[in-house]
């Protein structure tokens, strides 16, 4: 449980900040995805943006947790 928290929670907090900063500065109607203007509704764009930020941040947290293992953990395998 605690491992899940350590991966998902800090990434959630940072994704929230990143979302607010990013979409305050960038109007989603001016975004281009693979060369095409983004056509999703604004709510969808904000939501997907947040989930994408969360995913990226969670990947970083996961890697941190993975590298944080001590020698004993690695040798035990």
């Amino acid at each position: 449980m605690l491992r899940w928290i350590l991966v998902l929670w800090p990434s959630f907090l940072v994704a929230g900040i990143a979302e607010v900063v990013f979409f305050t500065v960038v109007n989603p109607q001016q975004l281009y995805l693979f060369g095409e203007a983004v056509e999703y509704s604004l709510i969808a764009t904000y939501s997907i943006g947040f989930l994408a930020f969360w995913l990226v941040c969670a990947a970083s947290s996961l890697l941190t947790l993975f590298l944080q293992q001590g020698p004993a953990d690695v040798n035990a395998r």
Partner: protein
Amino acid sequence: MVEKTRSEKARVVPIKPVAPESDSLYEVRQKLHVRSVSGIFARWRWALVWITQLVFYGLPWLTWNDRQAVLFHLTERKFYIFGWVFWPQDVFYLAIILIISAYALFFFTAVAGRLWCGYACPQTVYTEMFMWIEEKIEGDHNKRRKLEEGPMNARRIGLRSAKYGAWGLLSLWTGFTFVAYFSPLEELLVAIATLSFGPWETFWILFYGAFTYIFAGLLREQVCKYMCPYARFQGVMFDPDTLVITYDEERGEPRGSRRKGADPRALGVGDCVDCGICVQVCPTGIDIRDGLQYECIGCAACIDACDQVMERMSYPPGLIRYSTENAVKKHWGSREILQHVARPRTLVYGGVLAAICIALVVGLANRTDLRMDILRDRAVLAREVGDGLIENVYRLQIMNMVEVPRTVRIGVSGLDGIRLANSEEVALPAAGTESVTVRVRAPRESGELGSNQIHFQLEVVGDASVRVREATTFLLTQ
């Protein structure tokens, strides 16, 4: 090669493998069955539950100017807060509000510890509400423990389903309310009536609802212990004069049980009867008698509980109380504690807090509700239009930030004889933007060849007090 004699033979160092640490890295959580508590601080906490939740659940239902009073309208990219309409250009105010929140947290923490955590944090508030439901359905802490340890029978399944169901409804309502801050409530109500929520509205209602349920129902104190960054750094704002929840060790120890009415001095014991109720009521499951711990959220439940025991024993209250490190050490009364509230740390936090609050008020009072962005036309830099006049073309993006339609007059200045070649007045929709193309002409000899600075002015027709002035460049060519 040198041959070693027997006596020189290297000593064998035995290798003892260390037990792997990985299994002990995380403690196993003991589920807490927190005993409910009454008393002055419990009443304060419930008062704050009511105030914060009346505001949270109630605000989306208020109307103002024929619209939702508080709405962070994501699709319009506008924040409506009563009479104000904030645009993305106003992010400055958001930054100020965040700084104010941070300094308020610093200030209150330095003065009286984790007031926020104990009384106002959503984690505390929702846990309080969820525990109230739990107690109403499953009974007090002893009954809940028995139910937990007892067999899985129809009664347990029934009680648990009722509890989870009630939590679920409250969570869904919370999720719905949350979404109503970002998507107009009227539309959501229509969507409820016809069961036609958009996919993302549904997602966020369930998402926020699930978070409420998991945090307040299941995780509880683990959020404070393992997830909250503030709990980890609150210690740096503490000093020996900070009011924290303190067990008076000198008065309480040696702790021990005794019959009611027995003289503790004769028995050689302190005032603590070691009843353990302070531990039973603690939402994070700590023993405050071990001293200040980072897990302590400052809810003062142990103070309420201990004071009741002291009353029953006919001892003075306050064996556990709000006090400071210095006050306990130097036996200060409340007067000396109050005298030490004003000290460099609190004065600095308070001073900065007051200054930023004033800046916010002044900023809001002087906020212009009219804005203009100037873009030079990219196709034509400058062209000759006869009579020795040079023409430049601009696109003005004019934002009317109030909720009434207005007409503005455009003016231009900075060169002798400069003037607009087209209509000067523009009608703006309520809380909307209008983009206009303007042609500006000036005599060739009015400035230097190349770039000259000029200004555009906007003035609201019928209200000369609202003016905006922005600079741009005018190109003069041969």
